Structure formats: C-alpha cells, structure tokens
C-alpha cells in the first residue's frame, strides 16, 4: 500500500514534452516524401517512424555523453514516450547512438556493429567528439570522427549534449 501511496504523492515527474522545432532539419513527413534526397536529417528513413530501437556504442567516449544518454531514458526526460528505446544488441536495433571519438581499438567493432544492424537503420553521432573529435582531436589513439568510419545520418552537438538536445534528434526520427 505504501508503494501506491508514494506513487500517488509523487505524481508524474516527467517534464512536459517540449514543442518540436525540427531545428535545421525537415520534419519527417517531408523526409518520407523525398527518400532519395541524401545527407542531413532529410534522409531519415520513414520506416522508423513511431518506434525506434536503439543500440548504444561507446567508440571512445569520456562517459559524459553516456550519462546524458542515461538521463534521456530516466523518468524525468522519458524518451520512451516518443517511441525510442534502448536494446541490448544491434540485431534487435533500428539505430545506433555512437558516442566519443572513434579509437583505434573500437574501429572494427563499430564497423561490425553497423553491419550487424538491419536496414533501414539510422546512425546518430552524439556529442562533439563523435562529430569532429572534439576535445581529443589529434590524440595518438584516435582514428577520427564517427563519420570518418561509418556513414552518419544525424548528429547531436554539445559536450556533453544536454538530454533535450538528444531527445530532439530522436523525435525527428520517430516523428512523435
């Protein structure tokens, strides 16, 4: 009984869904009309609308981005209400969240993971490291940004990117 009571007392703690701005990208409705258009968020596959199963790959991150991704799926931000969900294997996934610079040790693993994700799929580079090597550019173990190794469909800027920025991009894919 105590549990039910505390649920009642606490109520709903998730923040209200912010309005979609589709910053810098066309809304998915439009994207689905022009599937041949390459580059940027316009090319997000329409088949993934509504529900997006994500596998997270840490290609060499400082773990800052991981904490923010974790926060995305916490009760406060609750990304699952927009149809995005984390899964345990690329075989179960429609998309990848890649964080960090791509290090030498993770290059093959990242390629294999992308290859193991069934199509249609999205690859989302999360954080400045993943976009352009950020803090770690030029370090000896770094191969490059994510797009230097595998094709990238969407990017989230920030070091680390705040959860609402990550969720913004996820909502572009799911269209919810």
């Amino acid at each position: 009984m105590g549990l039910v009571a505390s649920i009642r007392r606490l109520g709903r703690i998730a923040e209200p869904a912010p309005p979609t701005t589709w910053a810098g990208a066309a809304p998915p409705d439009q994207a689905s009309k022009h599937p041949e258009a390459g580059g940027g968020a316009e090319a997000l596959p329409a088949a993934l609308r509504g529900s997006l199963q994500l596998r997270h790959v840490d290609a060499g991150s400082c773990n800052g981005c991981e904490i923010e991704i974790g926060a995305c799926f916490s009760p406060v931000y609750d990304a699952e209400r927009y149809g995005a969900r984390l899964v345990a294997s690329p075989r179960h996934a429609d998309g990848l969240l890649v964080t960090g610079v791509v290090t030498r040790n993770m290059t093959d693993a990242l390629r294999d993971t992308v290859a193991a994700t069934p199509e249609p799929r999205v690859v989302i580079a999360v954080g400045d490291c993943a976009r352009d090597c950020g803090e770690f550019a030029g370090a000896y173990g770094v191969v490059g940004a994510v797009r230097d190794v595998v094709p990238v469909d969407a990017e989230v800027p920030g070091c680390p990117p705040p959860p609402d920025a990550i969720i913004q991009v996820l909502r572009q894919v799911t269209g919810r």
Partner: protein
Amino acid sequence: MSAAHLPALLGGLTLAACLGAAAVPRRALPGVAGAGTALVGAAGVACGVAALDRGIEPIELAGALPLAGLRLAADATSGLFLVLIGAVAVAAGIYTAGYAGRGHGSARTPLVLLPVFVAAMLAVPLAASVTTFLFFWELMALASLALVLAEQRRPAVREAGLAYAVMTHLGFVAVLVGLVVFAAAAGAEEFGGLGEAAAGLSPATRTAVFLCTVIGFGSKAGLVPLHAWLPRAHPEAPSQVSALMSAGMVNLGIYGVVRVDLDLLGPGPRWWGLALLAAGAATAVYGVLQAAVATDLKRLLAYSTSENMGLVCVALGVAALLRATAGNDEPTAAGAAAVVALTAAFVHLFGHAAFKCLGFLAAGSVLAATGRRDLDALGGLARRMPTTTTAFGIAALGACGLPLGCGFIGEWLLVQSLVHALPAGGTLVALVLPLTVGVVALTAGLGVAAMVKAFGVGFLARPRSEEAERAVEGGPAMAAGMGLAALACGVLAVAPAVLSPALGRVLPELPAVTGQGAGAVPAPDLDTVLRLPGTSGAMSPGLLAVGVAVGIVVALAATHWRARRRPAPLRDAPLWACGGAAPTARMQYTATSFAEPLQRVFDGILRPEVEFAVTPYPQSSYLVERASYRSRLRDVVESVFYRPVLRAISAAAAVVRRAHQGSIHAYLAYGALGLVVALLVAM
C-alpha cells in the same frame, strides 16, 4: 518348416556364421561376420514371431549338457524378447560389415564371437529350465566380455573389462543362488514346474528368491547401485557391440525380472512392487542426471540406457504394486492401470531398443570418422555426415520422450497408468504414485537436456577439432544398419499399433499382473487411437504425426508464398560476435559449459571435483597471467559405494595372505586341520 525347427535353425546358423568367420580370408571377414550376425538375428526374429503366434513346444536336448541337459521352449513373452533382440542384431549385423570393414574392432576373435553373443542372448528367453537359463546367461556374459575386450590394447578397455567381469559375475552369483534356492524349494527344474510350485513356497523362501534374482537381473539391467559396469563397459566396446549390449542385453535383465519374479513367483506382496519402483526411480533419475553432465558421447548413451531401464523397472513396479492393490474379485481401476503400466514397460522396451541401437550405431559412425567420442572435440558434423546426423537426431528425439519420438508412447502410457490409478489405490498408492509422476517428469526433462546437448554440441555448429573437420560418412553398410534402426524408430513412434497383436498375446500370459478371473483386464488397444481399458486416456501418435507434418507443410508453403510476393532484399552480414573478432569454434557452447548450470543445481548429488586457480603476474595481483579450470565428474555411487567395499575386500585379503607364507609344512597342517574340522562337523 514347423516352429520346433526354428531353434535348430538358429543354432545351425550360429555355427555356420562362426565357422565361416573363422575360415574366410581377412578381406571378407567383416562382411561374413556381419552377414552371419544379421542372419542369426533374423532367425531369432523368426523364432520370436513363431513363439508369439503359437508358442514353441519344449525341445529336450538331453545330451547337450551333462546331468541336466538343455530344455528350450518359448511362449509369447519369450517371443516378444526374441523379436526385440533379433531385430537389434539384424541392424547391428548389417552395420558391422561396414564398421569392421573400416578397421574398427576388426580383429578376428571378436568378429567370430559376435554371432555367438547374439545367439546366446537369443537363447536366454528360449531357455525353459533353470540349468539351461543359467548356462546361456553365463555364455552371454562371457561372449560379451570377450567383445568388450576387443580393443584390449587400450588400458581403459582393460579396466572396463575387469569391472564388467567382476560385476557380471557377482550378478550371476545372485541369479544362481536365487534360482537354485527356488528350484530346490519347488522340487522342480523346468520353468513350468517352478511356476506350479511357487504358490506353495514359504514367504521367506519367496522373499529370498525375489531379492536374489532382482539383484542379479538388476545388475544386468543397470539398476542403481549395480549399474557401475554399464557406463564403463558399453562405451569401451566396439560400437556394434555397444548397440547389442545397450539395446539387447540389458533387456534380458528385465526379461529375468518379468519371467522369474512376476511370472513364475507369481503375485507377490505389495513391497515387491514398491521395491522395484524405488530401484527403478532411483536409477532413472541418477542415470539421466549422469547422462546430462556426461561429455563422452557413448558414456552419455550408456547412462541413458540405465535411465530407460529404470523407467521400465518403474513401470513393472507400478504394475506389481497396483495388481497387489487391486484384487481379483472384480475389474478395478487399479487393475486396469496395472495392465497399462505393464504395457508401458513392454512398449518402452521396444522404443528404447530402437533408439538406443540407432544412437550407438550413429555414435560408432562418428567414432569411425573422427576417432573421438568426446563431445567437446566434435561439432560441425551435420554438414560433413548428414546421414549419421539425421540418424542420431532421430535417436535423440526418441530418447527425449517427446511426441513423434519412439520413447514417447511408453512414457505416456506410464504416466497414464500413474494418473488413472490414483482414486482406487488407498493411502500408500495415493502417496507413492504422485511422487512417481514427479520422478518420470524430472527424468523426461533432464533427458531432453542430455539429448539436446548430445545433438547440439556433437553435431551442429562448427567443428571443434581437426578430426571433426575432416570427418566423412562411413559407407553404405553402416548407413543401411542405421537406416533399419531409424525405420524401426519411425514405425514405433507413429504406429505403435504394430505391437498390439504381440501384446495381446503376451499380457494374458502374465496373470500375476493382468489379473485372473473376474479381475482380468484386457490388453490396451494400441490402434490408430490408443485407448486405455477402464480409463479415459486416449491419444493418437499417428494423427499427431500427420498433424505435425501438415503444419510443417503449411508453414513452409506460407513462407514460400510470402517470399514470392515480397522479395526480401538480401544482404550478407557477418556473424555478430558482440563487436569482437570473427567467431571461432572456441566461442561455442561445449558439452561441459552446457551442462554446467545443471551440474551446479545438482551439486550435492554429482559432487564434481572442481579446481579453479588464477596465477597473477608478480607485478600486480590484478593482472592475470594464467587461469586454469578443471572439473572432473566421477560416478558418485562408484566412489561412495564401491570403494569402501573394495577396500574392505583388499584388507580381508591381506589378512588371509598372512596365512600364506609359501611353506609346504604350513599348507599340509592346514589340510590336516581342515580334514579334522570336516570330520568333527560330520559327526
């Protein structure tokens, strides 16, 4: 040719096969020995069919053995076992021609003895007097011992042979004492006379005979704790001999129990049934547990034999218990269930013989191709040896006791008898039977785990050794032997009705279980739909098979149709190895790792010896240089039960040895002393 000539034909064929195998040049030896064995088996089947049809009248061969002579006869019960063993011998004989031809167990002596072994096994159910029975029983034991020792150069074989020799002779002594006491008390030697006199014996004599014979026959059937020879000897013998022993010879242990304890000694008190039931239940669970954790393919099959003989023994025990409960005044539910249980025992004997014969033949084919029996070194055979893999798959399905496998019908009947007897039996029965249902269920579940392991690890996935990588199929003779056994599996699984006429003749012969007069129950109807007398249980394996087949066809057609309508874009993706390097054979489940959870759950019973050692680098205890894991499973019964006995015997022998100093004077004194004692006793 009349039925009476068939045993003579059997003997003649055996002699011909033996002499033929002894005389022909080496090149033709496997063919001749195999064909001879198959022919002897076929003659056995013919004998069995004749016996089932009308019985074989007693044949006296007065001069064959000094003093007693031989006496052969066969009723339907004998006929059932003759057919069973003969059929196994036919498949194993055909297989031998190919197996020995590839240089396995191809020495002359074992091949010459093979038909003798088969003939001795066939002669045991033909025996109609105590002397004859014991003579052929011992001949069978000796012939099989020689066959187990066929590859005697390997130390493991010699050790197994020694264990087998000792155990089988201890069992023989028990049978000998039991039967001799029986014969002496009954004042008769022929089985007919024994049966008539049995009712008049004192309860103490009957109990003594029951205990001795159950111990003796139980050791042959591999009942715990007398099973220890079985998982040693069966794997070390050449594979066709393993098949003959595991699918043929162990059945004779059951035959002994049925013939002497249920038939001749007649209906016994309740605790006989309970004793059989308890021994069977312990065997079933222990056997299947050991099979589930075994990593040696043939050892796994041997433990599975022990398990299945346990189930048969449970069925016999349930039948005896329920019959003792039922009474003969009117048809009762308990009486009906007793008949179902007895039917279950016989049906399961046939099912087990079929899948175990096939299993050992397939394991032999693997052994011939790879030289390995260790599941952890096999794998990947499905692509390299499709025939053998299919054969083993059918055998494993049978051993699982699931629908469409030939072990299913027997287990289903057994569970039916347990479930339907419940309301009628009184407190004891109400207590024992649900527990037995649990035992059967646990056995079936663990059996599935054991067989999934044997098939999945042994035949699927990637080869774990070079030998498995290079494996090739064994040739037409071996395939034909396996095909025959597989056919038997299929028929028994789908149409157990083929056993119906035989059981219809056998069951009335065993009034000690099926009841007499008003209490007699007819044999269950194993038609297309199995209907059980006096109960509501019904099931149709044939229709089940048709249903499954139709389901598969429909599913295939549907996927085909879908694929045609919407061609899926095909993409070759590498196997997912969690981002690691390409998967290697070492990443696969092994038999050991597959069984590890089970081993943990049953830790208290199995008592594995596990050593786990981590060696760190000297610089830091966090950096591991080497880790070693070793787990060893011994047969607990053997180490707990046998070792103290062996130690006691050795100690006793050491005491006796002190009296043997090698001095002739002392021996003369012993002789004189002995004479004096004898004279004193005589006075």
